């Protein structure tokens, strides 16, 4: 296939309805060669639908797509790829048991029939020279980090001669370093004339990389804007995640970010007031010498210890896969630790006795994988609400469930958290990701737990719902509880946490005070750099 020439792409009057919802209503969108266009919107705003239409995965009901001024119609992803459009999905379309080369060969239309992986090496060289992307063709995909997998997806698209790349939340899985490198790759690609659609809900990031931003709200076009302070931001690529500096360096950014957020949610967001009440002095939760294995039998958490005081949120930062998951699972009773103890208000937590015993001890758990561990998709909202406490009063007596008590509790939660659902007996799977998370958080926090274990509570949740979830966690803290918060969003940690513990290679490499620390410092610690004076291991006096 010859190299495509990409000049411009316009989508006009796009409309697509699914049973019960209009996902896209009269949306227009355009992008030119060498441009990064941000596509911003809350969950369910119609970003994915619009991009799936552009990628030929679904067909629009109405509207026109023009590529280089001539009308086109993509019947399938393959069709779209033939026209030079490549997509990197948020959930990677890679096959873990195959090698990198095999995954790439699968996507190439012109790989030879016999020994198709033989051509991959040469092409990867070309790719790494042109854009600075390096991947190892012989590695198996299951061995790679999420950031590396992302790179393979991009390489796949580039080798398929994509001239217009659709990236769906590409940075959500990256470390700060990987993000920096990735932005370098973006610049190399745009310099080569490639157009990039950058789908995200992170405002700072999109303000610093995009030349224009199209904002969708509830299936409609909320507007297309230009980041006002683009030039001041250009000074350093690091500005993307060094949010602290941005806020202080220029007034435009703050205005822009607020305006963008307003455009996205259609109302003024509550100004975030950290307003942290100082934690009380007594220690509520204490973990000592905890060692936990991962699924493959390797030590994932190495002799970790920490304390949380009454009325305190302890945040945990770290690149995913450094033991956070195993740590929180073992505290929640889902994974027996090799050794170590945990005490909640002077009572030893039975870490080996299973999740039920931990729950009975007054611990709430907002799990990382909400569909796998948080809910039962085919059961109703009401049944999911009493999933954990359903075996005892008031939800059941002598083994008989009281559905009126369940319905009362469910109605309370649905109202308080503004869960968008047709009915409390609707199956859980009919809810959107954000609403599912609201139900889980509502269930977990309803009984005023002494300790809340929260793993990525706002991951993939839209900005309004995320703010609600955060304020509920704050309420827990203010009511004298202890909150253990694992998150990959540094902003969230800096906003919520009273102290931030950084995990790297299974260890807590340091605990910092967010008021005196910076994104940069935590990012360095996440990457394994030693910061003098910050290496607090167990005696973590703040």
């Amino acid at each position, binding site marked *: 296939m010859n190299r495509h020439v990409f000049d411009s792409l316009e989508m006009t009057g796009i409309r697509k309805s699914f049973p019960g919802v209009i996902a896209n209503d009269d949306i227009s969108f355009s992008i030119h060669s060498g441009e990064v266009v941000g596509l911003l919107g809350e969950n369910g705003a119609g970003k994915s639908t619009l991009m799936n239409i552009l990628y030929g995965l679904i067909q629009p009901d109405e509207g026109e797509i023009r590529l280089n001024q001539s009308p086109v119609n993509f019947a399938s992803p393959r069709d779209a790829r033939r026209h030079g459009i490549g997509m990197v999905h948020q959930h990677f379309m*890679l*096959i873990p*048991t195959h090698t990198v080369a095999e995954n790439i060969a*699968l996507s190439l239309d012109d*790989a030879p029939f016999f020994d198709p992986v033989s051509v991959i090496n040469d092409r990867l060289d070309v790719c790494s020279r042109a854009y600075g992307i390096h991947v190892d063709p012989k590695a198996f995909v299951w061995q790679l980090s999420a950031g590396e997998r992302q790179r393979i997806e991009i390489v796949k698209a580039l080798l398929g001669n994509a001239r217009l790349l659709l990236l769906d939340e590409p940075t959500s899985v990256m470390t700060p370093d990987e993000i920096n490198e990735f932005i370098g790759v973006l610049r190399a690609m745009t310099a080569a004339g490639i157009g990039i659609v950058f789908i995200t809900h992170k405002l700072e990031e999109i303000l610093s990389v995009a030349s224009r931003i199209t904002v969708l709200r509830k299936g409609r076009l909320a507007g297309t804007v230009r980041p006002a302070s683009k030039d001041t931001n250009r000074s350093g690529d690091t500005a993307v995640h060094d949010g602290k500096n941005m806020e202080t360096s220029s007034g435009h950014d703050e205005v822009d970010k607020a305006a963008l957020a307003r455009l996205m949610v259609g109302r003024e967001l509550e100004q975030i007031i950290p307003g942290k009440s100082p934690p009380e002095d007594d220690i509520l939760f204490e973990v000592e010498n905890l060692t936990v294995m991962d699924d493959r*039998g390797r030590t994932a958490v190495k002799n970790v210890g920490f304390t949380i005081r009454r009325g305190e949120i302890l945040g945990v930062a770290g690149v995913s896969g450094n033991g956070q998951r195993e740590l929180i699972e073992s505290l929640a009773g889902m994974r027996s630790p090799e050794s170590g103890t945990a005490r909640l208000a002077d009572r030893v937590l039975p870490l080996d006795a299973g999740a039920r015993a931990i729950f009975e001890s007054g611990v709430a758990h907002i799990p990382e994988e909400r569909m796998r561990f948080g809910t039962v998709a085919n059961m109703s909202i009401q049944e999911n609400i009493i999933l954990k406490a359903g075996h005892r009063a008031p939800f059941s007596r002598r083994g008989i469930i009281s559905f009126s008590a369940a319905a009362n509790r469910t109605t309370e939660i649905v109202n308080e958290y503004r869960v968008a659902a047709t009915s409390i007996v609707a199956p859980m799977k009919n809810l959107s990701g954000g609403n599912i998370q609201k139900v889980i958080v509502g269930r977990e926090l309803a009984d005023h737990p002494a300790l809340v274990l929260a793993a990525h509570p706002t991951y993939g949740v839209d900005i309004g719902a995320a703010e609600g979830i955060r304020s509920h966690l704050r309420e827990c803290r203010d009511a004298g509880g202890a909150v253990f918060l694992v998150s990959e969003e540094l902003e969230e940690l800096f906003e919520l946490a009273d102290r931030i513990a950084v995990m790297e290679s299974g260890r807590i490499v340091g605990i910092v005070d967010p008021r005196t620390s910076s994104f940069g410092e935590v990012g360095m610690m996440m990457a394994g750099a030693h910061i003098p004076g910050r290496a607090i291991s167990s005696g973590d006096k703040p």
Partner: protein
Amino acid sequence: MDTAFVIATIGRAFTAGTPLLLATLGEIIAERAGVMNLGIEGMMALGAVAGFGVSLESGSPWLGMLAAALAGISLSAIHAFVTIGMRAGQIVSGIALTMFGLGLSALIGKGYIGRPLQTPLHSITIPGLADLPFIGDILFRRDPIFYFAIIIAALIWIILYKTRWGIAIRSVGENPLAAETMGVDVAWVRVWCVLFGGALSGIAGGYLSIVYNPSWIEGMTAGRGWIVIALVIFSFWNPLRAVVAAFLFGGIDVMQFSLQSLGISPNLLRMFPYVATIVALLITSSSITRRHISAPEALGEPYQPR
């Protein structure tokens, strides 16, 4: 034990292993594409009766083999339609296929019971190699289907690991959604793999009634279809391991009779394939090996295109 006895025993092990190998290879291809077909016993039975009937009526064992393949294909087409076209459960459909195939073969074969086949397939003597001592008789004076099975095994290995088709087939079995977005027609790949598996199962059945035991009796597949399911797991979905595993199981089949004279119960040996399979299952499910040798990720799951 004299040499002639050893040669004869090993030879019989190869003959007993050939139908197992053919059907195992077919099932490997289908399962690699994500479709489990538990109807092998039924496809083999129908292949056996079709092969025998056509050989008897036409006088050509080759036409018989062709008929056996077609019989296997037609049964597997039902499975393909039900599980890929209608996206119904693969387990239920496969078991139904076994019962249907066994019943239909009994019905068709009523008139063939007790009639001998006058035109069996003749052995092929490979010039030169056949004169080698010991292994010449064992390996190079065999029926053509034996060689066919070995060649098919090598071909399948090459296709699976060295061609675009192979990557597509394995991708469809591991992550059909990813394959689909890469432009692979998932349903199409799966249908072809299931039909190919049906053809090999049919030929395996034909081998039983034309070569192994040139006659037809009801239920002559005698549970081999289930051993094949076990063999697929035992060989970790790898066609070359399947060669070794199939002839090993063939050897155990033969030993049932040889060891009876030594006072060892044949029932004990008949259990062996299943015990070996349970051990293989334990190995594949242990977390350490899971990434390297495990069942295709999407095996048994109907694929719903977007």
